[in-house]
């Protein structure tokens, strides 16, 4: 089987209407961002279902996860998912709002294996716990590091810098 990039020729608007039809309410605020990205917000609890459906869309499936980022807006956290479709050569960017005090989100690494380490990094740096992740450990920092550095209220503790 060969992966044909851009085999399905759809403009972004057509793609947007098609996805809106498929997903209805699950994709909130679906809009087009030139040149090749659709942006939408997804509710935290519907994320796994939406991702599974995006993967299984057939000829316009979004089959690859480009990256997963976590951003700390002081009132809440947000995870950003960037998915790529080889057949239409377009991206879709999903923004998921997460409660700051209970920073839990569903994992999508059972659907997209490429998201595995990105979610580990989001846990390490931002403290977002991914439910269902097979191996949620720290990835970039020491195992016994205290705190999640990329948070805006991060306090660097002395215990993180031992007398080596």
């Amino acid at each position, binding site marked *: 089987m060969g992966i044909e990039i851009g085999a399905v020729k759809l403009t972004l608007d057509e793609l947007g209407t098609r996805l809106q039809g498929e997903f209805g309410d699950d994709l909130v605020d679906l809009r087009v961002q030139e040149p090749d990205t659709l942006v939408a917000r997804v509710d935290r609890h519907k994320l796994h279902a939406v991702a599974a459906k995006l993967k299984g869309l057939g000829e316009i499936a979004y089959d690859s996860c480009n990256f997963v980022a976590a951003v700390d807006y002081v009132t809440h956290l947000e995870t950003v998912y960037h998915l790529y479709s080889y057949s239409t050569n377009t991206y879709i960017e999903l923004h998921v709002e997460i409660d700051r005090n209970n920073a839990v989100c569903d994992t999508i690494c059972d659907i997209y294996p490429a998201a595995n380490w990105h979610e580990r990094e989001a846990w390490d740096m931002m403290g977002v716990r991914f439910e269902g992740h097979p191996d949620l450990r720290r990835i970039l*920092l*020491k195992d016994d590091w205290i705190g999640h550095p990329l948070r805006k*209220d*991060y306090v*660097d503790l002395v215990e993180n810098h031992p007398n*080596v």
Partner: protein
Amino acid sequence: MARVMDHYPKLERFEHPNIVTTTADLVFNWARSRSIFPFTYGIACCAIEMLSSGFARFDIARFGWEVFRPTPRQCDLMIVAGTVNEKMAPVLKRLYDQMSEPKWVISMGACATSGGPFYDGYNVVNGVDKIVPVDVYIPGCPPRPEALFHGMLQLQKKIQKMSFVAPRIDEGDELALASLRGEGERAIAPAGQTDGRLPTNAAESQEVQ
């Protein structure tokens, strides 16, 4: 004023310089400085400049230093090329301990000297001299291979000052004593001291500007 022998009585050194020690010094220092085995400890970008200095244009072999060994047990010189962070620091210390005497450390680049452009990172150790005693510091980001050679030649001069005669050190010179034990500044720093870390939030950071 004490002698090293007072602290380490097992070391066999001569008390006073004489014709035997000066001749032996000359021969041993000449041999040691002209055929050092560096340790391939490239961590980051400076490692690529260290590699370049080993290849054809900047030939490190003309100084006799081309035998880079990957295991610390066969090396004299550890060229720390790159940023050392909290995860890497115990590894660095362990590798330094595995080298046998006499051993030297060159801290290559701004990151190994003092943290470099990442000095206020939460994970960055501000200088490898906090962990191991350093003999020569080479600034630069990255230092050109010629700068590395200049540092190496300075190290050669330093080696030529080594002697079989026990050196004198001040009683209160904690840093020199730590250096003799093979430890860096962190051994003598009081517990709980951090060195210029990232401030706690963005508001504070804006004040610094």
